[in-house]
Structures are given as structure tokens and as C-alpha cells.
């Protein structure tokens, strides 16, 4: 039980994908402009990442290892992720067209999102059990979502601020992200893995 808690806590806070591993920066900066969009993206990524880590574990154990084709790992993972993203896109288009429009190009981009591929690859590297790898994927996604939502809140707050012209837009966004990463350094050593 403690093991699972540690995996989850580590993935959410200590080894946060965005702020300590610097994975998934593209959607982190791209869709954090508005709170609603960020929340939608968080859930989409949560869904994709959890399923991707599950599927990648299954493929790794049932196909890649038995048939000894580990060199095709990336190819297989991308295939699975692409299919998942496609699926999420269809569901979202049906259920929430505005969110679909708001996420725009970033939704299909989850496919090539390093965070999603990263979770699949890091997962199999660490030789987790099935349940642990599902949890790891979920934890990483929660960490991503948490940071994304926090960050979108901060960016909304910056919206009306009289930021010097030279720093408006991306510069101040990156500075804020940097400050957040520094703050998250405080969690260092929280779990000894």
C-alpha cells in the first residue's frame, strides 16, 4: 500500500512531469490561457495518459517481450497513443464542441506529446507491476493536470496586469513557470525512491 502511495505522490508532486522532468511543455504553455480549457485539457490528458500507460504495459508484456521485438517499442506506443487521442477527440467533439474548439490544435498534438510517450516509456523502464504502472500513469497525469490548472489560474490573473511590453506574452509566462518550478523544488526528497 505504501508503495502505491509513494508512486502516486512521487508522480504528482516530486517528479512532476512538467516542472521537474520538463515534459509536456507544449500543451502546458499552449492551453493554459483559460481556466476552463485547462481543466478540459487536464481531463483529456488524464484519460489518455492513464490508458496509454495501461496499454503500453499490456503491449510490452504481451507483444513486445514475447515476440522479442522491443526495438519496435516507440512505433507501437505511438500507434496506441494516436488511436487513443483520436478517440478522445471524437468524444470531445460530440460532447463539448466549445472545448473542442478551445483546445484546437493541442488536442491532436497530445499524440506527439512527449509527456504521453514519456509516461509509456518511463513506465516500462521501471518494471512496474500492472497496477503500479496504471497508477504511475494516472499520477503523472494528475501532476500534469494540477500544474496546468494552477498555471492557467496564474495566467488569467496576469491577463490585465500592466506588464512591460517587452515581457508581455511568452516571456512573463515562462518566468512564472520558472517560479513555479522553483517552488516545486521544495518537494524534493519528499519520497525517497
Amino acid at each position, binding site marked *: 500500500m505504501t508503495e502505491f502511495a509513494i508512486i502516486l505522490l512521487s508522480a504528482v508532486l516530486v517528479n512532476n512531469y512538467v516542472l521537474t522532468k520538463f515534459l509536456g511543455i507544449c500543451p502546458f504553455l499552449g492551453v493554459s490561457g483559460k*481556466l476552463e480549457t485547462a481543466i478540459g485539457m487536464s481531463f483529456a490528458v488524464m484519460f489518455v495518459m492513464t490508458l496509454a500507460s495501461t496499454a503500453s504495459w499490456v503491449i510490452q508484456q504481451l507483444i513486445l517481450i514475447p515476440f522479442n521485438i522491443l526495438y519496435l517499442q516507440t512505433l507501437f506506443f505511438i500507434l496506441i497513443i494516436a488511436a487513443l487521442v483520436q478517440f478522445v477527440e471524437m468524444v470531445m467533439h460530440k460532447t463539448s464542441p466549445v472545448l473542442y474548439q478551445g483546445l484546437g490544435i493541442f488536442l491532436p498534438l497530445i499524440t506527439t506529446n512527449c509527456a504521453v510517450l514519456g509516461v509509456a516509456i518511463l513506465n516500462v523502464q521501471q518494471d512496474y507491476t500492472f497496477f503500479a504502472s496504471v497508477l504511475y500513469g494516472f499520477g503523472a497525469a494528475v501532476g500534469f493536470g494540477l500544474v496546468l*490548472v*494552477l*498555471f492557467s*489560474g*496564474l495566467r*488569467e*490573473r*496576469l491577463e490585465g*496586469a*500592466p*506588464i*512591460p511590453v517587452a*515581457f508581455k506574452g511568452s516571456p*512573463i509566462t515562462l*518566468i*512564472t513557470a520558472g*517560479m*513555479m518550478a*522553483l*517552488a*516545486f*523544488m*521544495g*518537494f*524534493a*526528497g*519528499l*519520497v525517497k525512491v
Partner: protein
Amino acid sequence: MIFLSSPHQHGGNSIQLTMYSVIIALLPAAMVSVYLYGWLAVFLLSLCIGACLLTEYMCLYWMGKNTNRVWDGSAALTGLLLALTLPAAIPAWMALFASIFAIVLGKQLYGGLGFNPFNPALAARVVLLISFPLQMTTWLIPMHAGATLEMYDFVTSLKFFLFGPDAIQQTWDAVSMASPLGYVKTELTQGVTVGEALVNYNYSTLHAFIGREAGSLGEGSALALLMGGIWLMARHTISWHIPVSYLATVALIAGLFNLINPDLYAPPLFHLLAGGLILCAFFMATDPVSSPSSGIGKLVFGFGCGLLTWVIRTFGNYPEGAMFSVVLMNCAVPLIDYYVRPRVYGYKRGSKA
């Protein structure tokens, strides 16, 4: 035609009044720091405040804003707060760097007063702690305890402040000691219980309260900080929500775990008095700009700070979690503002128009 809306009368409160009240409330703590570290404290305080004011002036000047804003007290307050969170042994150039960082990246780039999402002083402090962990956790032996040191006269202090221990023919080890928090943490990793560690350290709650333990400049005396903090509360410059919920959370969690296993978890009173908790609770977390607006939001904010402080202190790599916790909770302020709101007149809790 100019349209001026009611009210046509004003209560007379102003930004200056607020800022200078906080500065006045911090004076007792600053005096205690001078008592503990002599000229060194004076140097550090004046360097930080001076650098902050100058940087602020420069920023305002270059950005073509009204340079009179420099006297609104916020820059001086940032400098003062920053100095109070730094260890007395910090090299001068680091303090200078931190001051400039606080004003430029912590405040002016976000558009100046009122728009910074993070507490500028704490942001600078966190940057220093992560960049220079050694210097930031080297605590000078206070004047009264290190009477044998003979480094607290003006000239030696100045040399030490500018050029480090080598300039006065000392080593770091000779002039520094562990802070209670750091000591307990190190001992715990070596299997010593909290109780034993405290005895070994010769820890006294009374000393921690009136301010005789090693630590950052302003952390020394809980008494001085409490005096200032309570005065501010009585003046309504800060509201009671954050300090109360912050300290109560730390005390409750620490107490609970201390009951479960007193060998592993330090007692609540130790947590409350150690490190920068009181300073953070009364002066950092209550920074109006980077804390939530509503009362109930402030309670949540304080709770989050308390929880994170205890978690980082107990489980993390860093012995002190107070400033990390405040900066972390600063990230969450917009969300707290959005999701945690007071119940509006005429509505049931949780229901909206």
C-alpha cells in the same frame, strides 16, 4: 461630461499607510536581529532595503512610470522582509542579487505593485536557497552565544560581510552552528529520536520564544514577531484568518503525529517556534497581493501553507518548509479566489444565481 460615481467620501486608508504599518510592525524583529548579530544585521538590513529601493527606482524610471511610487513603502518592505529571511552569514553579493531579483523578477516584470503573483521577498529567498543551499543553511553563532568569536566589532563584521570568513582568518565551521530544525533533521536520519536530539542541542522553548537560537536574521524571536503581528491584526492591516489557520494547522498536524510517534515527529510547540514559521505566518503569507481576497479563501490558504510546511519539514530534503509552502500556495491563489468564495447575502451555501 465627467461622471463620478458615489461614494463621494473616502475613509482615508492608503497604500502607504498599510505598507508603513507593516514595516513598523517588523521593527521589533529587526531590533532583535541587531541584538543577535550586531553590525552584521545592520549591514544586511541596510543593504537589502537600499538595494530594493534603488532597483525599484531604476525600474520605475526606465519604464517611464511615476518614480514617486518608490516611496509607497512596498519596496522597502520587500527589502526588510528579504533581509529578515536571510542568514546573517550570507555573502553581501548574494543579498544584493536577491534584492534585485525580488524587485525585478518578483515584482516589476509583473507590472509592479499589486500584480505580482508571488511574494517577491520569498521568491528571491527560494531562488537563493535552491541556488546556494550551503550558504543559505549556514547559521552564524549569535553574538551572545559566541562571545569568544570576537568578530562582532564593526571592522571585522564589515570584512566578514564583504569577503567571507577567510578575510577574518576564520573557517565556516568555526563561526557557524546548526539551527534547531536542521539539527533535528540530521539527527533523525542517523536514528536519533527527536527528544534526544533536542536534549543534545540544548534546546530551550523559552530561548526559542524570546529569541536566542540560531537562524535567519528575523526568525530569532517569536516574541518580537508576535508583538508586531498582533499589533497589525488589531489595526486591521492584516486579517486574522491566515496566521490563525496557518499556525493552527501546523500545531494540529504536528500534535497529532507527535502523539502517534514522539520519537519520529517533533512536538507542535517546537514546530511553531522553530525556523521562519511565525515570520511567514504573520508577514509573508499575509502579503495582501499574493494571498486570496476573501476571508474564507484566506482560511484555506493558511491551511494549505500549514500542511505543506509540516510535510516539507518532516519528509522533504530541506529542513525549513515555511517559505516553500507560501510560494507554493501563492500558485494556488487564483484558484482559491475562484472556487472558494464567501456565501453571498440571500443565497444558500453552494447555490448560485
